Structures are given as structure tokens and as C-alpha cells.
């Protein structure tokens, strides 16, 4: 039971990382109608810059800031130089151009940092454990990640639904010309918005860095999972992104732990472990297929 709770929290923590990625991606898609494969590259940039800054003694918060800032700036430059030429293009063109960006960023990273993965330790003040469930000490850093994710998502929801900027954003999505006529600089708004989505990806990158090897290509693994989150949740829906991210985070984490155990009930251990592990790695995709079979436009399908 305690192990289960711990795994539940791990799943939540993974889900929160996915959520930060998904909300940026779905925001950009929902508003600018742009599919950006290079969103994973921004995650990677965040992780590399954050990890490097911390390794050079910047301290955790400055490192975090560096990672998030680097991702945001990269995102805004990306938008300014390339993306704004693609808003009116079809999705195929967008996929291809951003595929080109991925190749560029992955190679760039290995030119700067080499092909060997680099590691990042959680900050000292969060390296301990918290025993908030009696008998189950839980890593403080993971808890901090969960808390940050929830706070940021709450802030995002508030920003989009309750503020004037959010109103512009939502209006811009439905009527670009009209909002332009109101004297709002749409181009600038879009650049900033893109930078904001990129910052979220960078934040996710820095926070995920201690759990995974920071290496070239790391962005695409999480990008594809983020796609699954969005597909399950429903495009353009923040609520859907939340539901999808939690579902995928939990399914993946719990699946890896428990599916092999479950398989042992029917199969000899040697077979069960292999089959269980392979089933676990496919689990989220199977989940996606099942959801789509019943709800082709995702759990929280938006109109249109």
C-alpha cells in the first residue's frame, strides 16, 4: 500500500512534467493553429542550460531561471525567424519545418555539449525526504516538482480564462483581424505567447533533468508522450491536457511497476518479466487507441 502511494506520487510527478509540455503545446496549437514538433527541443534546451548552469555553481534557482529563460528566448527567436511564416501554411509544412528544427537543435546540442549525456543533481535543500505519509518518506524534490506543476497550471488557467491578456488571446484565436483592429499588436502577442509556451517547456526540462539523462534527442521522447496526452485529452482544451497528463503519467509509472507483477500471476517469472516490461512500455499507446476508439476527438473534445 505504501509502495502504491509512492508510485502514485511518482506518476503524478511525471504527469505534471507532461502537463507543462502539453499546456504550452496545446496553447500554441489552439491559438496559432501551429503544430510545433520542436517543442521537445525547447524542453531539451531548458534541461541542458539549467544543468550546465548548476554544474558551474549558479545555484539551483539561478540555474532554473537560466534554463527557463534560455528556452523562452530560443522559443521567441524561433517564432520570429520561422514560425510566423508558417501560421497560414498547412500542417504538413509545419511538421516538416519543425522536423528540420529538431535535427538542427539535436545536432547543435551535441556540438556544444558532446554526445555523452550529462547529469544533474537535485538541489541540496531539496535532496532530503519528507515523511508526509507516515512510514513512507518521499523525496522532497519530487514533491516540489508536483507542487510547482500544479501552481503553474493554476496560474495558466487563471491567465487564459480570467485576465485581459487571456481575453485577447482567446479573441485572437477566433478572429485575428478583429483583434488586430482593436489596436493590439498580434505579432508581438504571438511572439510573447510562443515564448511563454517555450518557458513552460524549459521549466519542465529543468525539473525533469535530475530524473533522466540530459542528452541529445531527449526532447522527442517526451514530445511524443505529450502528443498522446493531447490526443487523449482533446486538442486545445486545458482541462483535457490535465486529464490526459495525469492519465498518462499514472498509467506509465504504475504500469512499469505493476504489470510485470500481474503477469507473474499467470506466467512463469522469467517470461512474465519480459512480457510485462514490453507491455508496460506499450501501455500508454494501447490506452490511447482504446480512448480514441470510443472518443475519436479525445476525452474533452472541443467543438469544431
Amino acid at each position, binding site marked *: 500500500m505504501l509502495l502504491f502511494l509512492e508510485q502514485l506520487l511518482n506518476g503524478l510527478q511525471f504527469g505534471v512534467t507532461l502537463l507543462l509540455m502539453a499546456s504550452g503545446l496545446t496553447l500554441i496549437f489552439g491559438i496559432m493553429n501551429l503544430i510545433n514538433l520542436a517543442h521537445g527541443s525547447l524542453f531539451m534546451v531548458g534541461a541542458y542550460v539549467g544543468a550546465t548552469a548548476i554544474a558551474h555553481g549558479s545555484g539551483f534557482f539561478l540555474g532554473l531561471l537560466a534554463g527557463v529563460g534560455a528556452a523562452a528566448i530560443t522559443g521567441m527567436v524561433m517564432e520570429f525567424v520561422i514560425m510566423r511564416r508558417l501560421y497560414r501554411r498547412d500542417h504538413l509544412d509545419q511538421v516538416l519545418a519543425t522536423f528540420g528544427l529538431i535535427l538542427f537543435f539535436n545536432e547543435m546540442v551535441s556540438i556544444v555539449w558532446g554526445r555523452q549525456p550529462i547529469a544533474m543533481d537535485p538541489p541540496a535543500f531539496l535532496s532530503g525526504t519528507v515523511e508526509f505519509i507516515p512510514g513512507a518518506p518521499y523525496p522532497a524534490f519530487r514533491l516540489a516538482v508536483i507542487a510547482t506543476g500544479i501552481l503553474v497550471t493554476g496560474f495558466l488557467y487563471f491567465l487564459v480564462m480570467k485576465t485581459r491578456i487571456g481575453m485577447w488571446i482567446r479573441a485572437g484565436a477566433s478572429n485575428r483581424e478583429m483583434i488586430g483592429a482593436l489596436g493590439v499588436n498580434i505579432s508581438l502577442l504571438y511572439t510573447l505567447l510562443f515564448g511563454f509556451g517555450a518557458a513552460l517547456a524549459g521549466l519542465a526540462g529543468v525539473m525533469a533533468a535530475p530524473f533522466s539523462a540530459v542528452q541529445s534527442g531527449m526532447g522527442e521522447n517526451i514530445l511524443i508522450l505529450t502528443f498522446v496526452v493531447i490526443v487523449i485529452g482533446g486538442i486545445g482544451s486545458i482541462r483535457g491536457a490535465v486529464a490526459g497528463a495525469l492519465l498518462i503519467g499514472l498509467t506509465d509509472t504504475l504500469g512499469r511497476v505493476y504489470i510485470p507483477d500481474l503477469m507473474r500471476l499467470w506466467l512463469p517469472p522469467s517470461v512474465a518479466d519480459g512480457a510485462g516490461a514490453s507491455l508496460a*512500455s506499450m501501455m500508454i499507446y494501447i490506452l490511447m487507441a482504446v480512448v480514441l476508439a470510443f472518443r475519436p476527438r479525445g476525452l474533452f473534445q472541443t467543438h469544431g
Partner: protein
Amino acid sequence: MVKNISRKSWSTITIFVVLALVPPVAHAFDNSFLITMFNRAVIYAVAAVGLDLIIGFGGMVSFGHAAFFGIGAYTAGILGTHAFDGSDFIFGWTGSNDAFVVWPLAMLVAAFFGLIIGLISLRTSGVYFIMITLAFAQLFYFFFVSLSQYGGEDGLSLWDRNAIPGLDLYDRNTFYYLCCAILLAVWFLLSRLVGSRFGRVIIGCKQNERRMRALGYDPLLYKLTAFCISAAIGGLAGALIANHSEFVSPGLLHWSRSGELMVIVILGGLGTLVGPIYGALALFLMEESLVSFTEHWQVILGPVLILVVVFFRGGIVGFLSGAGKATVKSGGDHG
């Protein structure tokens, strides 16, 4: 789509003549690697021509075509392994090494999974379809990674190339020309197909699905058929690449492979069928020449792709047929 027929057939004739001349030229320069490289490009072209059917004509942007490529390759690899060591594959069948058994089977298996993937993903469209096909390809990627009895992550060697009576597939030239012949056949069959009744229906579905329904067509049926045909061609190309490299691995199903196939289609010219052949040659030549400059060649390839997308619409074939950007706007001037 009917424009510049003569120029387009010239670009088709030219490319196949070029392909046919590769072995003699390679021998003249005593550079047999050239044949190996072109052979690879030809095999990728087979898959890309099949992909052009659904993207260029059917409007289905599949970002998971490497799955079918990999499924075809693994069909050849797994059947070959059993045929080699005589072990049981299924129901006492010990696999096969016969190209006339393995290749059609690779197509059939790929088409079967195309049917399943298509049934689920074709009920959606646009960005959804792109993401879902990508995710499905990833599903198969992880499946083969965890398929430990067939090498798992490390892949699987094909001990013998498949056999065709009277042909020595180990002979570089023979295998190369065989692949070229298959490419020609696939190109020809699909060219007929897009001009047939079926072709007109899928092109209509790409343009206006709602109108097609009002005209009495069920788009899903036709799109699914096209998707399966395209998957089968991908499977065939996979079986060929397995024979070419005598090795299969999950890397064949990696998502970037799907991206590469799409790049080939766009680079060559979407919706032209011959374009992807140009695209494959261009991509592989570009790769080879960039590699000789730097190991970090992708840092150049990436921006080149972006430039192609932003400024060079219509691809190589669009450029060759003198239309380029203009085709998009004024296609009706021949009327």
C-alpha cells in the same frame, strides 16, 4: 493535377534512365559504394512513393509510416531467421527464405496493421491524424524493442538474403536492378491508380469530404483502402531494406524515419508520385556530401529543410516542370 503531363513524363523517364546508369558509372569509377547508396535511396523511394499516395492524393498526413517499413523488414527478418536455423515459427512452419513468399507476406502483414491503425486514426483528421499515426508507430517501435527473442533493441541479422530462382540477389547489380524494377512497377501501378475511378474518389475526399458524402460516398472506406495500399508498399520496401542491409532493428521504426520519409515526399514534390524518387536521391546525396564535410551534418540539413518548406514549394518536380510557386495559384490556364 493534369498539368504539364509531357514535362512530368520527361521527369519520370529521366530519373529512371539515371537510375539505370548508376551501376555502369559506378564500375567506371570503380566505386561500388555508389551502387549501395543508390540502392538504399531506391528502396526508400519505394516507400515514399507509397506514402505520396496517401499524403499527396488522399490528404492523409501519416507521420507513422516507418511502422510499416519496420513491420515489413521484421517479417523478412523473422521468417529468415527461422528458415535459417530450422526452428518453429508458428504452427510448425519454419519460416521461409523465398522472396515470393516473404515479400507478399510482408505486404500483407503491413496492410493488416495498416487496417487496424487506419480504422482508429482515420476517423480523425488534421493534426489529430498526424499525432495519432506518430504514436502508433511508437507503439510498434517499443514492441520490437521488447521483442527479445528476435534481438530486442540490438536487432536481428538476416543470415541469407531472400531467394528468387534464377537470380543471385547477393550480386550487387542484380539486387539493385531488381529494386529499380520494383520501384518502376510501384510507380506505374500507383500512376494508374490515381487516374482511376478509385483515385478520383480519394482525391475528391482530400478536397472536400463533406461534399463527397453528399454525393453518396463513404470517405472512410476509400481512405482506409488507400491507407492499406500505402502500408503494403511500405511493408514491401521494408522487406527490401532488410535484404539490402541484411539486418533489421527497431531503428527502422524510429519516429525520425517517418519524418525522413515525409521529407523525401515533400522535397521531391507532393502529389506527383515521381517526385519522391527525386526526393530520395536528393536526400541521400545531400546526406553523403554533408557527411564528408562534418559529422554534424544534420545541423546543416535541418535548416535546408526549413528553407525548402518556406521558399521552395512544389519540390524538385515542381521546379523541373517550370511551375514552382505559380502552380498553386493559377492551375486553370490550360482550360
